[in-house]
Structures are given as structure tokens and as C-alpha cells.
């Protein structure tokens, strides 16, 4: 996953909260809590970087934590909170 390009799903809204953020998916109506502010910054930044690793670095997350964050992102992907950035999503912008 670290070498892939990802983005926040178009149907997801992030609501800032003191502990991080609450992510709501308007399509599947799932509510997810992003329990760290770093994770929120990472998810918001996914779009602007060539791949996940670049986004992690830009968010200032130390390399030894990259794998742990990849696991968290995988969980978000399972709920369709984030999606792989494909040619179509690039075109749409």
C-alpha cells in the first residue's frame, strides 16, 4: 500500500473533533473515528502526494511507524473511507 496512490472517498466528510476526526460515509452511512490528529492530516493529505509513503513523510510520521499507519489505512479502505486513486479519479478533478 505504501507505494500506491490513494485518496479520500468522494462520499466521505471529515468532522474535526478534539481527538482527531469523525469520518462519515454518505453512501454506506458508516461512521468511523480517526483517533489521532496525525491520521487525520495523513488522510486529508493523501490526495496531494504521489503515494502513501510520500504523504506519510509529508505529515511528519517517522518511518518506523509507516507500517502501523498502513494497517490503519487498510481498515479505512475496507469501509470505503479511502480509495485507490485511479486514472478516473484523477480525471474527475
Amino acid at each position: 500500500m505504501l507505494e500506491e496512490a490513494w485518496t479520500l472517498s468522494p462520499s466521505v466528510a471529515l468532522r474535526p473533533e478534539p481527538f482527531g476526526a469523525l469520518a462519515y460515509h454518505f453512501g454506506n452511512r458508516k461512521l468511523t473515528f480517526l483517533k489521532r490528529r496525525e491520521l487525520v492530516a495523513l488522510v486529508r493529505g493523501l490526495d496531494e502526494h504521489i503515494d502513501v509513503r510520500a504523504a506519510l513523510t509529508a505529515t511528519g510520521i517517522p518511518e518506523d511507524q509507516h507500517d502501523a499507519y498502513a494497517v490503519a489505512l487498510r481498515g479505512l479502505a475496507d469501509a470505503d473511507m479511502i480509495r485507490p486513486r485511479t486514472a478516473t479519479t484523477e480525471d474527475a478533478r
Partner: protein
Amino acid sequence: MTELAERPTTGSLVQQFEYGLDAPICLTWELTYACNLECAHCLSSSGRRDPRELTTAQCEAVIDELQRMQVFYVNIGGGEPTIRPDFWHLLEYAVDRQVGVKFSTNGVRITPERARFLASTDYVDVQISVDGATAEVNDYVRGPGSFDTAVRALANLQDAGFRDAKISVVCTRHNIDQLDDFKALAERFGATLRLTRLRPSGRGADVWDELHPLPEQQRQLYDWLMAHGDRVLTGDSFFHLAAFGESLPGLNLCGAGRVVCLIDPVGDVYACPFAIHETFLAGNLLTGGFQQVWQTSSLFAQLRSPQTGGACASCSFYDSCRGGCMAAKFFTGLPLDGPDPECVQGYGELALAGNRVVPAPSQDHSKTAPTRSQPVMLTLTRREEIDAAPVTACASNPLAGYTLPRSLARP
């Protein structure tokens, strides 16, 4: 807001929830106190419309604010919300502003035409209230004809292609034996079953002693939820049952004023839909808006500050049960930092047997004169007591079951 400034930013989600969120995640909005039915256990003592009910424009302003606060969905109830003439307009208004709606109804206005409209929307959930899997058990508390009304609504929704309606059941002494039947009813209509806890709120206070599940029925409910819980919704309302052993899925904490709250028909904001009482009134949204009440009310600040377990603190199940439901304690006159009246470790019964003063209701919108919808709570309790055919008793004593008229019985 010193409380918020001092809150830690790490810790478990439950801990974070205890400190409160910037906006609620479970917001109930009761649009009207008017209702066509007169359910015996109505949590909001509904019946008559309040003349101060928010106008259409005021409701729209509330929705605009919810959109700004990113409250992604709201549970609309009442009373019977669909009898407000602007109900369908407000529904569309909310959905158009990305405020999803789940509304609770007794089904009275879910005509085939409305069902088709609902099926065409994408962001609306419908929850039909049914408190018995048979007309007999349901109508006993919800009033004559109410079961047929609910089933007709479910059929209309299904025929219109509305997917995954919810059937919402308040668990009582009379329907705990029907849990499998409720599940079958839900399956018949392609719906999802939702079970919630009977609380002594509103008119529920008057019938709670008679209707709340007996201790062995709580166990039965717990076992059933452990076996079927993954496909049944509970609104996280049974966390006091966690003291039987394993926690049930969902949030194990009282969310009142922290992640839960209620907007009532006149714009009063309460800590929880089951806590409509001046003690839990945080303010009115007409003065400075909902966000101001949610974020600055002193009541909510108090509810979000660390709580003590009181008499529960030494209980080994405190971590999962957390002393149960604040509203249930309050309306049975128990201390808020002690055990729940239905504490499954038996401490509730002890507490109920002690000295307590049940608080007087601070408001009541019940109809003043009973109508033909009023439930007649007679049949079921009598039947429970009959454990054998009367003929058996007669066979042993021709006067069995016959009590002398009072005047004759006196010496």
C-alpha cells in the same frame, strides 16, 4: 470552556466520548408532541400539539445549523412526526442539505404513495414502532388497531421497493418471549429488527413497574442478543446487561449530553430523549442556536466532566456497565451515581426497595380526554395469573375463585 481545554487528546474512544464531542453523533429531534396514538409507555408523554411548536422556518434554520455543524444524520420522532403538515417538506429540506434522516413512526401516514416517495430517496431511513409481534401484545400498550397500522406501513414500504426499513421494538415483560417472532416479522418485510430498552420516562414511569422485563427475562434477552446480536440493532441501549459477563457490541456508556441529545418540539434541548425533565434541560435553541447550547451549556459541561461510580465503583462490572442508564435511575428516584434499577447483579432491586422519591414530571402533553386509540391495559396481566383451566379448581372446590362481596365479607 475550561473543561474542553483541559481534556486529553489521547485515550480510548469511550474516554473521549465521555468528554463530549464538538457536535452530537446521536441527535434526536422530536418534531411534535401531537400523536394519533396514546401509547401507555410513551417516553415523551405525547398526545397534544404544543402551541409553541417550532415553525417551518425555525425548523429549516435548525437544519441549516446542523449542516454547518456537520451533524450527518438526525433521528426524527415525536409524537408522531408525520402528522406535522410540513413533515415531508422538512424531510426533503434536510436530505438536500446532507443531513440524513431516520424517522420513527407508528405508520399512520405511510401510504403507498408516501412509500414510493421514500423508496425514491437515498438518505432516509424509516423506523416503524411495533411493541408486540402479535396484535394482542402490541395493541395492549400501543392501543387498538396500532399493530395493523404498523404492518400495513411495512407492507406499503416493501411493495414500493423501500429497502431495509427498521422495526423498532421496546422490550417489555410481555414481548420478551416473542424475540424470534419479531425477527421473523422483520424478515418477512425485508426489514431489520431494532430492540430498545423500556425506560421509566414520560408515561413510561406510570407503567414501568408492570412492564419492565423481570430479572430472568433480562437474562433471556441477554442470551438472545449474544446469539443474534450481530444482525439486530439495539441503539446501544442494553449496556447494563454487560454485567452478565461479556459486553454487547456497541458503545458501552451513557452518552447523555456527551454524544447524545434531544431537541424537543419547542426547541428545548435535553441531555437525552429519555430525559425530558427540567433537571436535564440544557437550554432552548431559539435564543442563540443549537451549537451554543451544545457547546456552552453548564449542564452538558457537568455531564462531560469525570463522574464517580458511587455505589457502583466497587462492582467488578463497572467498566462495562458503568452504572447503567441515568434516565432510568432518575425517573425511579434512585441516585444518579448508584446502580441502575435493572442492575443485573440485583443491586437495583435493593435500591428500589429503599427510600426514594420518584420525581414529578415537569411536563405532559398527554391528551386530556381519552380517545378510542387509548390502550386498555387489562387483558394481558389477568391472563398471566391463570396457570390452569378454571375447571380444575372447580373440581376441588365449587367456590374456588369466588370471593365474597365486600359487604358480606365484613363481620
